[in-house]
Structure formats: structure tokens, C-alpha cells
């Protein structure tokens, strides 16, 4: 250590200023939604740049929470997204472990196949997917959505988990196996806890894949009471002129659970491997 960590060198001031300005610029478009959600209905067209518009009112939030089926949409979205998170993390952590720790016939082909699934333009998987779900009676069910979303999130999750497992030395598992530990136990008791940061990324990614998806949801779900948040909010945005403030208010309310989840997982993502006592 040459300098004390908390000295305000010119470089550090510059970095701090850059980060603060960048964060403000990043948040600005979201502040725009705040502004629009607070705008009274007679000021749809305004050239004011004020964050809090003149005559601001919270009416749109009240309308969303108490007059629109917004809470129902949120419940539906939470059910789907949490199921996708659990399923995605389970499937990705096991599949990636096989890819990282074992040599077996079809290993490389399997890894490539996971990647290849990302290459087809989503547009053309939708029509066949619709036919498949219709035949399996999965239309207008959450199960259909959950399976579809898990499949979209899996390739990335498998690759991330595999990359992370590769950085964890496998000597501990090897020793445990030699001592007669079952392979499944070695995986769940030794490797999985060490992979917590990657598990957080996988969980967050699976959740987001389900939370914001619109195009597949529109095909699978048609009954109003099954609407997820994107479908519900889009149905408001359809009547753009009259409901724009309601729509903006709803959009902001949508971000709340996501932010909560991210902050909860964030500690895990960044604290990293410092807890684990394993050194290669």
C-alpha cells in the first residue's frame, strides 16, 4: 500500500464524478416515466423538462392499484417468474456440472447444441411453438409459459455455470469421491455452495427472462385473468392517448420487485469466493 485507500487523488475524484454523472444519465429515461406518470391528463403534450411536472398528481397510481387488475397481473407474473427461476437454476446447475467435470460421449456436441438454440430468429420458433402447445393443451396455462421461458434462459445459464465451475478446483470433490462419497453428494455439498455467485447470476437471469417477456406470452395467454404484467401493461398502452399516465405508473410499479430481488442477490454476486477456503 503506497497511499491510504481513502485519499481523494485527482484520478479518484475524476472516477467518482464520471460514475455519478453516468448513473444520472442512465436513470434519466426512467425519471421520464416518473414525470409522465405524475402528469395530469390535460398536459399530455408539454415542452417542460421539469422532473416533477406542474400540477403533479398521484392519481394514476391509485387507478392502477385499485381500479385496474394490476395486482392480479403482478401475481401471475410472480408465479411464472419464480417457477422459471427455480426450474432454470436446477436444470442449469446440474447440466453445467456434467459439462464442466466429466468427459463423456456427446459432450462437445451438447455444448454446441445449447448455443445453437440461440441462433434461430425467435420469430420463426413462435409459430411451431404455438402448434406444439395447442396439441399438448398448454395454451392459457402458466405451465406452458414456464417451460418456454426456462428453455430461453437455459443456454446462457448453462454456459455461465460451466464457466464458473471451471474456475473452481476439483481436487476437493476428487478426494471426497475417493473417500467413498457419492458423486451427487460431492456436487451438492462441495461444488454447489462454492458456485453461489454464479447461481445468483443464473437465478437473476432466469427471473428476468420470464418477468419481461411479451411475444411468447401474447401467443400462449389469451384470457384476461391469466395476463402477465407485460400483457396487461401493453393492453393499457394500446389506448395510448387516454391511459398513458396509468401505463407509466404501472411500468414503475413493475420495477419494484425486480429491484428488490436484484439488491437481495447483489451481495452474493459481488462477495464472490472470499468465504470459500479452497485454493488450487
Amino acid at each position, binding site marked *: 500500500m503506497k497511499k491510504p485507500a481513502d485519499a481523494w487523488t485527482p484520478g479518484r475524484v475524476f472516477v467518482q464524478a464520471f460514475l455519478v454523472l453516468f448513473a444520472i444519465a*442512465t*436513470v434519466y429515461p426512467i425519471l421520464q416515466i416518473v414525470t409522465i406518470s405524475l402528469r395530469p391528463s390535460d398536459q399530455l403534450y408539454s415542452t417542460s423538462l421539469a422532473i416533477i411536472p406542474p400540477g403533479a398528481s398521484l392519481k394514476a397510481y391509485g387507478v392502477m392499484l385499485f381500479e385496474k387488475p394490476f395486482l392480479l397481473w403482478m401475481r401471475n407474473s410472480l408465479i411464472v417468474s419464480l417457477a422459471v427461476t427455480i426450474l432454470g437454476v436446477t436444470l442449469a446447475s446440474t447440466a453445467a456440472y456434467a459439462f464442466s467435470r466429466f468427459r463423456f460421449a456427446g459432450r462437445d456436441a451438447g455444448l454446441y447444441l*445449447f448455443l445453437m438454440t*440461440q441462433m434461430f430468429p425467435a420469430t420463426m420458433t413462435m409459430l411451431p411453438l404455438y402448434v406444439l402447445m395447442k396439441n399438448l393443451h398448454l395454451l392459457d396455462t402458466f405451465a406452458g409459459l414456464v417451460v418456454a421461458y426456462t428453455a430461453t434462459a437455459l443456454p446462457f445459464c448453462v454456459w455461465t455455470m460451466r464457466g464458473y465451475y471451471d474456475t473452481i478446483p476439483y481436487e476437493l470433490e476428487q478426494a471426497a469421491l475417493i473417500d467413498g462419497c457419492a458423486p451427487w453428494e460431492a456436487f451438492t455439498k462441495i461444488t454447489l455452495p462454492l458456485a453461489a455467485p454464479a447461481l445468483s447470476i443464473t437465478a437473476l437471469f432466469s427471473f428476468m427472462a420470464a418477468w419481461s417477456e411479451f411475444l411468447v406470452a401474447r401467443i400462449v395467454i389469451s384470457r384476461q385473468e391469466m395476463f402477465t404484467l407485460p400483457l396487461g401493461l401493453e393492453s393499457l398502452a394500446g389506448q395510448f392517448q387516454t391511459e398513458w399516465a396509468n401505463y407509466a405508473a404501472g411500468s414503475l410499479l413493475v420495477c419494484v420487485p425486480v429491484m428488490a430481488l436484484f439488491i437481495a442477490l447483489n451481495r452474493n454476486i459481488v462477495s464472490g469466493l472470499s468465504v470459500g477456503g479452497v485454493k488450487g
Partner: protein
Amino acid sequence: MLRAPRAFPYQLLLPATIVMLAVVLFPLGYSFWLAFRNMSLYHFRVHDFVGLENFRLILSESVFWTLLAKSAAWTFVNVFFHVTLGVLLAILLSGPVRGKVLIRTLLVLPWAMPQYISALTWRGMFNYEYGAINLILKQWLHLPPVPWLSDPFWAFVAPILTNIWLGFPFMMVVALGGLTSIPGELYEAADLDGANGWEKFTNVTLPSLMPVLVPAMLLGTIWTFNNTLIVWLVSNGGQPADATHILVTFIYKVAFTYSRYSYAAAFSVVVFLLLLGFVVYVMRRTSAQERTA
């Protein structure tokens, strides 16, 4: 590598494989089949095998090559800014910064926003008269307003700006995750060797980030190339006059506005083969580098 009963890795893979087969491989196969037929609105129930006719049509039209160039530009510019901004911010955030948690949380907000909401909000911000961007240009910087959504060039820049904003937080989170797995000893050793900040970045940080960044970049490239939603919503379906399309939004329009299903399927097969070639090329190169390193 670990030793375990031969069936163990397959048991681990089974659940994931079943899901992928049902939801991804069946539709892919069906689309390939469709690409060689003439299914459209007029031939929906009864359609015939037409061989390579759809592909001949696509490759003989100049629109394909124009769209390919625009898709390439769209992908390169986006991924370049996603990765550079993401890695830069992650590194700055892992240094001594006040309010680190707050800044990090704010920077991730674009990712937390549902994309369709962001796209529609940005579209509002690009409005010529009432949009925040032109108002800022006029009122704060005293610059002339930009015809964001009516001029073909700016109408293509607008979705790119939107998508850069959407995409950098993901790369930042990936890079942050990668940074935590770098042992502090490596930096201490670099300090002992008298390395400066840039040398530490190129010799320690970047190589250690690569195992996490390379798959993220590869997938980021594919996602960006295949991103229909942003261009579609920000330019309102390719306006003005279908001048802002990239390959995938064009396919979307052909499939769902003009109902030329088989033509669209063939188009997406071409896009798929392009991306496949790209990925195989990149993987060959990175594994060749690993072997020589």
C-alpha cells in the same frame, strides 16, 4: 476430470435436455421443413414442396444484402459499447468509490426494466417536438433538433442508442461477477513486479475476465443480431417506409404482416446458418488460442 459411474453425467443432463428438445429443437426442425415449402396465407392448409425456390428468391434480391450490412452494423456497434462500457464500469466500481451500492444499483436499472417499456419510453423521448432529447438539445445545449424518427439515418441511430442503454448493465454484472473470482494475490504479485494500472489491466484483469466474458460476448452478439423488439418498437415497425429494418425485423414483418410463412422460414434459416458459421469460427479461434497459450 472426475471419475464417476458412466451414467452420472447423462443423469445430470437429462432434465435440461428434455426441455430443450421439446421447446427449441421441435420448432427449429419444423421451420427448416417449412423453408422448403410454399406455405402462406393463400396456401395455409395445402402447401407443396418447392425445393430451394425460397432461398433462390432471397439471395437474388438486393434487399437481403442491404439488410445483412445493417444487421452487421447494428450488432457490432451495440456489442462494442455493451462490452467496453460494462467492463469499464465494473472495474471502476470495484475500486474505492463512495456510494458504491447505490451507483451499482442505479446502473443496473435499465436491465431491470422490461424491454418493451424502455423501448416505448425511448420512442417518446425521440419525439421531434415533445421528446426529452430534442428538448435537452434545444434548451440546454442550444443545438438544432434532430429528426430522430423521420430521417432514415437517425431512425436507425435511435434504436441503437436505446439498445446500448439496455445492454451495458448485463455486461457490467457479468464482469463484476468475474472480477470477484480474481485472487488478490495476482494484483499483489503485479505490484511487486512494478506493474502500472494499464499493465495490471491487460495482464491480470482482462485474461482473468475472459472465461466469463467470452461466452457472454458470444451470446450477446447472437442476441443483438436476433433482437427484433427494440428496432421494431423504437422505429414503429421499420418506419419511415421500411427503411430502418435489420434482418430479423424484416422477417417479422414478412411473416406476420405479409403472412409469407415459408419465405420467412427460409429467411430465418439463412440467418441461422450465418450465425452458426460465425460462432463456429469464433470458437475455433478461441480454442486455438487456448492451445497455443
